[in-house]
Every structure is written in structure tokens, then in C-alpha cells.
């Protein structure tokens, strides 16, 4: 995974970068399988490696295959990225270790989900029970976000297509 990231940073060929990011997603999916997040792995493999690679290729059709090399080096973005990253890493220092049973997340509502969700929802898969029932509002919001994204793309790209057709007709 580290190797693909380094290559993505170094390369200027956008086609290769898109392919590498697909490979990165596949590797990330295997990582999720290792930490028992099988459903996250599904999503990562299908969206990250599959659909988004296809969409990126579609975008490449429109903008060319090689990256434009910027004419001046900018320090400020690098600085902002480093500072933000350092702040995030500093924040993780306070977090409990991965899998620590004393962690706050395992103390609050998780025992109730584990003990009662089967009796309360009769759905053996706890993740589904939490996602659709206990956290129904969150999921509704997520679906609304996806809906909005789809509508947004539809509105933006369809309009461009219409405009183009008109221009073509005018030219003809």
C-alpha cells in the first residue's frame, strides 16, 4: 500500500495513477478483510477499485493523460497539509488502543446492541440492526446525501450535454 501511494505521488502519468489508486483500493479492501470489516471491504472493492476507477478513466477521456507540471513550487499547501496531519496524529495519541475492552466505545451502548439487538429486532446481523434500526436517522441522512450527489451530477453533466448539442447544431 505504501509503495502504491509513493508511486502515485511520484508519477505524472494520470492513467498509471488511476490504475494505481485502483490497486490501492484493492489492497485496502484486503486490509479491511483482515480486520474483520467484510462489508466495508465489499464497498471498498466495488466502489474504490471498480466504479471510481471507471469514472476516473471517463474523466481522463476529457482532460488528457499527463499531469501538467506546476510552474512554481508552493510551500503553503505542503505546510498546511503537514500541520493538519500532525494535529490529527497528535489527536490519536489520546485514543485507546485498538481492541481495548476498556475503551469508551465499548462501555456505552455497545453492550446493549450485543446483548439485546437479536431479541429486539430479530435480525442476527448486528451491523444491519444498528445501521437500519437504532441509527435509522443517520442512515436516512446518508441515503439523502447519496441522492443529492446523484442529482447534482445529473444536473451538472446533463446541462453541459444539452448546451453542447445546441452548439453543434449551430455549427452545422
Amino acid at each position, binding site marked *: 500500500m505504501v509503495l502504491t501511494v509513493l508511486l502515485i505521488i511520484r508519477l505524472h502519468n494520470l492513467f498509471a495513477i488511476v490504475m494505481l489508486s485502483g490497486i490501492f483500493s484493492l489492497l485496502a479492501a484486503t486490509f479491511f478483510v483482515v480486520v474483520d470489516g*467484510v462489508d466495508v471491504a465489499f464497498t471498498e472493492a*466495488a466502489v474504490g477499485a471498480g466504479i471510481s476507477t471507471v*469514472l476516473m478513466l*471517463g474523466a481522463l*477521456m476529457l482532460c488528457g493523460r499527463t499531469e501538467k507540471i506546476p510552474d512554481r513550487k508552493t510551500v503553503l499547501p505542503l505546510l498546511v497539509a503537514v500541520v493538519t496531519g500532525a494535529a490529527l496524529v497528535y489527536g490519536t495519541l489520546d485514543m485507546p488502543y485498538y481492541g481495548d475492552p476498556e475503551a469508551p466505545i465499548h462501555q456505552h451502548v455497545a453492550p446493549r446492541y450485543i446483548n439485546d439487538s437479536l431479541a429486539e429486532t430479530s435480525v442476527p446481523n448486528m*451491523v*444491519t440492526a444498528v445501521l*437500519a434500526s437504532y441509527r435509522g436517522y443517520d*442512515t436516512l441522512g446518508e441515503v439523502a446525501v447519496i441522492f443529492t450527489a446523484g442529482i447534482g451530477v445529473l444536473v451538472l453533466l446533463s446541462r453541459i450535454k444539452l448546451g453542447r448539442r445546441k452548439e453543434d447544431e449551430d455549427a452545422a
Partner: protein
Amino acid sequence: MSHHLVVRVVSKLLIPFILLFGLYVQFHGDFGPGGGFQAGVIFAAGFILYALVYGLDNAKRIIPEKYIRAGVALGLLIFAGTGVASLLMGGNYLDYSVLAEEAPKGQHLGIFVVEFGVGLTVASVMIVIFFAFAGRDHQIDEKEE
């Protein structure tokens, strides 16, 4: 794309299984890993593979674009409608317990319906976005592979 025989044959073999796996993840999500989000993207990925191999026009002939656009809204409507249904039957919004005589059964039913709505919206949005990108340039079908 018509000359890529291997790709055509292999994807013809694979696509039914991808779509079936998507449906399995959707409707078996109560028992195994998965659910509406995963099923939606798997189903959409299978369909997009078909569109890549056999061309956009063939894909649009299978599912006309207006149905997919309707699916985008319909999925969210099913989700939100389930909430309204539970309101009408005397519970809180998105409280599925009132949907059947016994609370667990109602929960199960509600989760099932809601997951179906999620899957429908996710799959439709993915396909819609793909169509929107691919439809901009008709050469994409031949140039990409």
C-alpha cells in the same frame, strides 16, 4: 470493443454471478455481512461492467435511463416512507416496532424494507453517475479498452 473476444466471453460469464451476488448481499444482509449500501454498489458495478463491454446504448436498452432516474428518488422515498408509515401506525418516526403485531417482527420488516430502499438508491445513483460521465463522450466505449 467488438474485437475483444476474451473480455466479452469472460464478462458474459461473470455478470450474472455479480448481479446475483449483489442480490444475495441485499436480501441476506440481515444474516450475513452486507446490506443495502454494499449490495447497491455491487449490483451497479456488474451493470457498469456490462455497459463497458457491450456499449452504452445496449445498456440503456436494458434499463432505460428514466427508470434509473426514478430509482434514485424512489429508494429514498421508500426509506422516508417507511418512517411515515411507522408514524401513521402510531409509533415514532422510523420506529419499525409498530409495523407488525410483535415488535421484533416489525423491526425485521422495517429493516428489510429500508435496506431495499438504500440499495435501490445507491445502485441507481452509481449507474446514473456512470451514464452521465460516459454519455458525454460517445467514443468512451471504444477508446477506453
